[in-house]
């Protein structure tokens, strides 16, 4: 009995997540409340049929804001990771392929410096310099985040470039660029994907944390981290303001964690 349930557990999770995702993506179509502005007279009402997750201080429906907040968090996380991958894979592969040459030494040096710099302080400093906002956050986090990816890519390239098929390609005179992209990179995809997915979790946490501290997504755009922060003073009498965004954030992170875990296990075989 228990074994059967366990077997279906994964299926349940999958279905649940898919429903949620489609809900989130199609939110505009059927949600009637405005996530940005509300009706002050409804301020701080507790969860009810009319408002599933209750109402926040400014009179906005929390459920709608959570849905939009999930969207924004996902948007920021995926965009950031995309740019981080772009920079990280390019520089990492160059450094790895040209191991022990000047190119590698320079890139490794840059890697070490950015890696050594306290992550949060660097992101904070960049946001202070370029201003707050969704686009700025994506830029700021990407500029710091690519390092983790580059390190892994470089490591993979260093080991992979001594493989038989690569030596063969070089002996045959295949151009370097082609070797990198068509021969080595596809084999490195697996660990890169794993670290990319786990990296999403870090980005989401950082973005939520930045909003928590006050640097981040601008009001009235919803951000899960910001909603948690804004609700923290009202935990006693209006707990729904912090708890539901917190749960949503946790679910997103949980999802990416299990996705990464699954990919990891598949990689190990």
């Amino acid at each position, binding site marked *: 009995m228990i074994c059967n349930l366990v077997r279906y557990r994964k299926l349940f999770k999958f279905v649940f997540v898919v429903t949620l995702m489609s809900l989130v993506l199609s939110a505009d179509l059927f949600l009637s409340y405005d996530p*940005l*502005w*509300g009706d*002050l*007279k409804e*301020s701080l009402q507790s969860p009810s049929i009319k408002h599933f997750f209750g109402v926040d*201080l*400014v*009179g906005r429906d929390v459920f709608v804001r959570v849905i939009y907040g999930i969207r924004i968090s996902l948007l920021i996380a995926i965009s950031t990771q995309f740019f981080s991958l772009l920079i990280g894979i390019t520089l990492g592969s160059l450094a790895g392929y040209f191991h022990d040459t000047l190119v590698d030494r320079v890139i490794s040096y840059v890697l070490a410096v950015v890696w050594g710099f306290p992550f949060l302080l660097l992101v904070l400093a960049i946001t*202070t310099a370029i*201003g*707050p906002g969704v686009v700025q956050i994506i830029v700021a986090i990407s500029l710091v985040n690519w390092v983790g990816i580059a390190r892994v890519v470089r490591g993979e390239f260093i080991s992979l470039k001594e493989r038989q098929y690569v030596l063969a390609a070089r002996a045959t005179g295949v151009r370097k660029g082609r070797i990198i992209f068509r021969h080595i990179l596809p084999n490195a995809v697996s660990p890169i994907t794993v670290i990319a997915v786990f990296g999403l979790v870090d980005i989401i946490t950082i973005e939520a944390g930045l909003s928590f501290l*006050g*640097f981040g997504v*601008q*009001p*009235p755009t919803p951000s899960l981290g910001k909603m948690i*922060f*804004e609700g*923290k*003073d*009202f*935990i*006693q*009498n*209006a707990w729904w303001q912090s708890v539901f965004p917190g749960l949503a954030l946790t679910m997103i992170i949980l999802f990416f964690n299990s996705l990464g875990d699954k990919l990891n296990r598949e990689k190990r075989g």
Partner: protein
Amino acid sequence: MKKTFLVSLLLIFVVLIINDLASEEKGEQGQPYAPKYGGTFKSAIESNIKSLDPIEINDVFSFHAASQIYEGLLDFQDKKPVPMLAKSWESKDNKTWIIHLRKDVFFQDDKCFSEGKGRLVTAQDVKYSFERLVDPNLKSAGAWLFKDIVVGAALFFNGEAKEVTGFKIKDDFTLQIDLTNPYPPFLFRLSTNFCFIVPREAVEKYGKNFSFHPVGTGPFKLASYAPDREIRLARNLRYWGRDSKDKKLPYLDEVNIRIIRDDMIRFANFKKGNLNVTKIPLALYPQIVTKEKKLSKSYNKYKLILLPGLEVQYYGFVLNKQPLGKNKALRQAINFAINKKEILKYILKGKGYIAKGFIAPGFSAYNAELEGYAYDLEKAKQKLVEAGYPKGKGLPEIEILLNAGTEIEAIATTIQNQLNKVGIHCKLSVTDFQTLIGKAFKGDAQVFRMWVEPLYPESEILMVQFLTKNVAPSGWNLYRYSNSKVDRFFEEAMLSRSQKERIEKYKKIEEIVVEDAPWIFLFFGEISRLLEPHVQGYVLDELQHVKYKSVWLKQ
């Protein structure tokens, strides 16, 4: 018969006198006056202090601690001057001021003095302290206090003189201050923290460390300071002050100021008994204070202090930015479109008062009859048409700069929503306070959220930000507001010898400013404190200043 009559008359007379004396002796809470000595008072502030050097202090937390350690020439209570280190003063023309010092005030004992014993405070100390304020090599936040009004101060500030000639030492306990022009509110300036008196020995001995090694004349000394933890103040045994029954002050042995950043955690500590006083967090305000501004039943074992504050919250327009700069009707439309009552009720939970102008009820120049911009959607729409943007058509997006904070953003979002309803579209930019000020000074913003906490309880300080000569970046007229009528009335006020006349001028200035609408006028603040029942003598004024020297604990 005559004898009985006389005796009874005498008895009645005696009873009346005793009654009179008894009611004078009653302390702040109407209890019989018998203060106990001893005990540690525990309070908390929400941020670290930046410095205890009087010339550097420009935040309320540093002030809170420093004002127990240092004292100035005078102080203000109920808008009336109270002598402190100065026992009297006079000025015939508001241009030359003579200050007579007390002869019995000693600095606190400290190693910087010979044999570690604090010495008598003299007029030389006053001149020394005041000159530090305009010393160009020091980190003085208050140079503006004297720089442009005291004779010779500007020269000293520019490094062209070795002293400020306007501070004349007449004798050891008499100082004469010469101003360049008559300036009636001068006493108010002398009551600020910038004018606390410091000993030269301490400054010279401790140098850079003087900011955390204060030596003053006040009722408490700094016992220890652990950043992010607590500040400990210990009783100054040589303090000169005495209470109305000629008993030595202060009563407390120690004042413990903890640093607790979070409002709710501070409140939780108060409820547990770890603190004797706390501010009331906004989230709990409706539960603690009823609509009639009284303590609610569940909290009635505590004492409540509630009074209108002098601070005003507003959004300032930067008037050299278009289209807001030249379009008065547009600014007025914006003012009419904002439903302040709703914001006060739902977001501020009733904690505050609607501001029709910028002079709060605590000031003597407060004008209760001021019309202001009451919420009126029809008038807003009319003004929009007058402004050339019917229903907001053609109006570009307006950017509002604000600093981070739950309430602040909630109010801004609501304002954004309310303005949307008449067709005015805004974009909110949240940044940190310092960046906001920087941008406002540079003129890099269209609208910015601000609040002004007056330095002293005299309306004049509110006027200077509307004067043409103070336009930023040289002064703090961040709005670049200029109206020659306002300038003229202000000059007249400064030349006037009658406080009543000045108040009339101030009221006129306020009317003109409100009509010109360089602001979105929002709210006046409310000061709230909850005290444990055994705390006595805790007096909070509208500037949120508290003097621990009069506080005592009943158990």
